[in-house]
């Protein structure tokens, strides 16, 4: 189950996955175990020992703090362990004494009480691993020695007689605040046991030949091992002997500050050694051991780092695969620009160590990690890969936002719509033309004397309708076309009711049922013999469009009513409604040609023997007429628009005396107004066309005159 989301690409991955399945980025952080397992064999000895000694501190770096903060027991260095062990051997504290705060140098207390010894203490009798494996370091050249060391060496060569044992003059270990070397510089000694003699005391003879010359000069000869009970405190003895040596070698001004401070503290706090007993020299780690190529990390021996990195370096194990950034993330990654921060690296490179065993070296890591507290984070310029299309879109968006005219666009449209003078003038002309016949009570346009063939065929089919089979009236027009289609339909339905054929109405549109009821209701006023369920069967709404029509062609009753049986209907007619072939004719009232086309395609193809008559709008006539005038006509009759309605009304009843329609219907009162409106429309179109030609001619003449 994908419940771990990749931090690089954001895609989900299984919980147990080590790397992302999509971008191969590492999902779990590299731990010390994985490091040792992956690259432990190839790591150098000092790194292996450091790994054994303890895991990395949070953040990947070891704390090099030079604050007065007392280091913990695990962070104590081996030299401190040896000092403690020696002090314990020399003068154990009385039982029950409260241990003072731990001091790395053992200051402020007479002896080190029995306390937990660091885990890296070497057991007794064991040689430290590094003492055997560390190669001898090359003698350091005199030019690289600090000034005080040169002077000390020169004075000792003059004052010390041959064969005399020099006192130890190497500065004692200092507190971390005084430039204590970090613990990684000390070789960890896991095998050192508490109470064991100092390791360097046993390793000094074997390693003395490998020590540099300047160190041999200043390093004391290890004295004979004193009895453990008579041994003074190691720290006190070390500082006392050192003080004696420094007094003779340097004046007070020449003594470094850190050495003077340490000396003063040792003098005031430590108890003096018992008289008559030689002071045991403090064993300090030899510098060649600290500076051995195998001990020091490579980055320190190679040179100062450019920047004090606080981030753990990525592990370069062979078994691990390097994470690959996806292209989109690589494009968003900030790259180093011209204002990249270089101050920190420059400062670290310029730093010269002024105290401690690394005094004089340049570029040494500072004892205190300079956490940038209170500083602003560096500003890394982001140079994104911007495509030209993106830049164009951004520019367009900025232009749109910054353009004030963009807000005024809707207002401009409203102004344009608020002055429809042309449309208003046309409307007034048309309405005026329509009102003229009604207001003047005059008949300008003659009724159609010649009836179209399709209208005549429709009348002939209606005249031949049988009375025992229903006529299907499909009311499939919208209410907006009711003025035109009702005029034509009323004429046809009036004719059908005059004949007396039963009528069944159906509609594939929801409003069709209501329009059919209105149509029958208007016609029934002249033909009250039509009763619902007897000779009038409102089938209602037929859903599903062409699918419903296909089902209707198979079984009209089942398609409309399903299993429902309307009560009170004539059984004979009801049985006739179970097959579309029982219809005497189908009259389709359609305002759109597609509706009629659907009726022809779905119903007429199923019952080709049933004639279909189309009563359509004038707007649909051009697309419907091919179904009527083709060599294989699908329509057997047509009544088109108001003209067809007026012609059919005249067919129903013609006044022999006047030659006009004897029983005018709905279409007749509209005929004159229709004629006037058509005439006005033609005039408007002609005037508009002439005006357009004149305007175009004037513009062309104006252009020609300009040219």
């Amino acid at each position, binding site marked *: 189950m994908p419940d771990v989301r990749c931090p690089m690409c954001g895609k989900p991955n299984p919980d147990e996955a080590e790397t992302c399945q999509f971008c191969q980025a590492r999902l779990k952080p590299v731990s010390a175990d994985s490091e040792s397992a992956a690259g432990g064999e190839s790591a150098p000895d000092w790194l292996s020992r450091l790994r054994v000694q303890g895991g990395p501190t949070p953040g990947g770096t070891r704390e090099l703090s030079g604050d007065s903060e007392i280091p913990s027991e695990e962070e104590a260095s081996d030299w401190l362990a040896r000092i403690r062990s020696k002090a314990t051997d020399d003068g154990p504290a009385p039982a029950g004494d409260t241990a003072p705060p731990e001091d790395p140098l053992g200051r402020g207390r007479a002896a080190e009480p029995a306390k937990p010894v660091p885990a890296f203490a070497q057991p007794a009798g064991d040689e430290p691993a590094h003492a055997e494996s560390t190669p001898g370091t090359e003698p350091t050249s005199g030019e690289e020695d600090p000034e005080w060391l040169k002077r000390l060496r020169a004075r000792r060569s003059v004052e010390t007689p041959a064969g005399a044992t020099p006192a130890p003059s190497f500065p004692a270990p200092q507190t971390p605040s005084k430039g204590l070397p970090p613990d990684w510089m000390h070789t960890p000694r896991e095998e050192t046991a508490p109470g064991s003699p100092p390791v360097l005391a046993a390793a000094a003879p074997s390693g003395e030949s490998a020590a540099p010359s300047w160190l041999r000069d200043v390093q004391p000869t290890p004295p004979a091992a004193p009895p453990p009970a008579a041994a003074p405190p190691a720290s006190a003895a070390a500082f006392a002997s050192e003080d004696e040596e420094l007094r003779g070698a340097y004046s007070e001004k020449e003594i470094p500050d850190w050495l003077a401070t340490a000396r003063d503290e040792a003098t005031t706090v430590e108890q003096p050694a018992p008289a008559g007993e030689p002071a045991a020299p403090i064993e300090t780690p030899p510098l060649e051991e600290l500076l051995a190529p195998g001990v020091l990390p490579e980055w320190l021996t190679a040179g100062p780092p450019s920047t004090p990195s606080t981030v753990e370096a990525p592990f370069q194990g062979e078994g691990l695969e390097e994470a690959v950034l996806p292209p989109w993330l690589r494009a968003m990654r900030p790259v180093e620009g011209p204002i990249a921060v270089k101050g920190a690296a420059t400062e670290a490179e310029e730093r010269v160590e002024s105290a401690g065993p690394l005094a004089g070296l340049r570029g040494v890591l500072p004892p205190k990690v300079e956490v940038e507290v209170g500083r602003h984070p560096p500003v890394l310029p982001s140079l994104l890969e911007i495509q030209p299309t993106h830049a164009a879109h951004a520019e367009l968006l900025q232009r749109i936002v910054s353009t004030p005219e963009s807000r005024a666009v809707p207002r401009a449209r*409203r102004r344009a*719509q*608020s*002055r*429809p003078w042309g449309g*208003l003038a046309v*409307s007034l002309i*048309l*309405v005026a033309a*329509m*009102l003229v016949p*009604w207001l003047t009570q005059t008949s300008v346009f003659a009724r159609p004397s010649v009836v179209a063939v399709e209208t005549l065929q429709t009348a002939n089919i209606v005249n031949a309708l049988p009375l025992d089979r229903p006529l299907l009236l499909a009311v499939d027009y919208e209410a*907006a*076309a*009711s*003025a*035109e289609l009702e005029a034509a339909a009323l004429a046809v339905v009036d004719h059908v009711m005059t004949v007396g054929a039963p009528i069944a109405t159906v509609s594939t549109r*929801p*409003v069709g*049922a*209501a329009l059919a009821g209105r149509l029958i209701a208007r016609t029934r006023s002249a033909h009250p013999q039509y009763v619902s369920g007897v000779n009038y069967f409102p089938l209602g*709404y037929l*859903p599903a*469009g*062409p*699918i419903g029509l*296909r089902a209707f062609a198979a079984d009209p009753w089942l398609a409309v*009513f*399903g*299993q*429902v049986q309307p009560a009170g209907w004539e059984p004979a007619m009801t049985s006739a409604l179970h097959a579309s072939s029982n219809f005497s004719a189908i009259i389709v009232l359609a*305002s759109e040609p597609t509706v009629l*086309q*659907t009726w022809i*395609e*779905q119903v*007429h*193809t199923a019952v080709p023997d049933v004639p279909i008559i189309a009563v359509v*709008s*004038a*707007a*649909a*006539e*051009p*697309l419907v007429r*091919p179904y009527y*005038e*083709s*060599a*294989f006509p*699908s329509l057997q009759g047509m009544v088109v*628009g*108001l*003209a067809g309605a007026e012609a059919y009304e005249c067919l129903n009843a013609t006044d022999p005396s006047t030659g006009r329609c004897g029983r005018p219907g709905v279409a007749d009162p*509209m005929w004159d*107004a*229709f004629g006037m*409106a*058509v005439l006005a*429309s033609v005039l408007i179109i002609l005037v508009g066309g002439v005006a357009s030609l004149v305007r175009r001619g004037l513009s062309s003449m104006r252009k020609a005159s300009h040219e």
Partner: protein
Amino acid sequence: MSDVATAALGFFLTVAILSYVLGDNVLFRVAAHLLIGVTAGYLAAVAWQSVLWPQLFGRMLNLGAWLDAALWIPLIMVLMMIGRSTPRLSVLGSLPMAFLVGLAAAVAVGGALTGTLIPQVAATAVSLSPVRQASGGMVFFDLEGALSNIIILIGTVTTLAYFHFGARPRAGQAPARPAWVAPLARVGEIFLAVAFGALYAGALAASLTALIDRVAFLQQIIGRLLP
């Protein structure tokens, strides 16, 4: 009273709709919104009264009808179709929607082939000879019929040529139709213009009829109100 209220409401709505000639205004918007709302409510009522209740839910009252699969299948499909109203359950409506679309496509294609395409293609396969033979074996000369058939042929071929948009690229010149297609397409363009003119005339006649009906209604109402 109801006739007066109906007439008054019809008068107000007619005036509101015709006020669009002055531009978009509040009256037109009110009438349009009222029309849309009433239409939607009427459609819902018709769907329930004419379809859902008599053919589905009304039958569920009859316990014997529960054994009929014709009741279960539509009911399940209706419930699945309701799932399309929510995005999380919209996938449920895919099955009934696919059923409807596939069935409608099959029905429409089958009907179009037998009801429109084949008859219309057959209608253009006419004889161009003016000599005809009557059913009684009498031979007569029908020049008008022959001319009509020629026009039908020319109109069909040239109109189809107009919709031939293939063009070959030429070096240094814009792509153009083949030389033999261009004049045919030009003639076909004339036939299309005539057809569109007829459509426009029909649309104008239908619109004028609707306007006449509304103006007559207003005249009738105003005539009743005036002394």
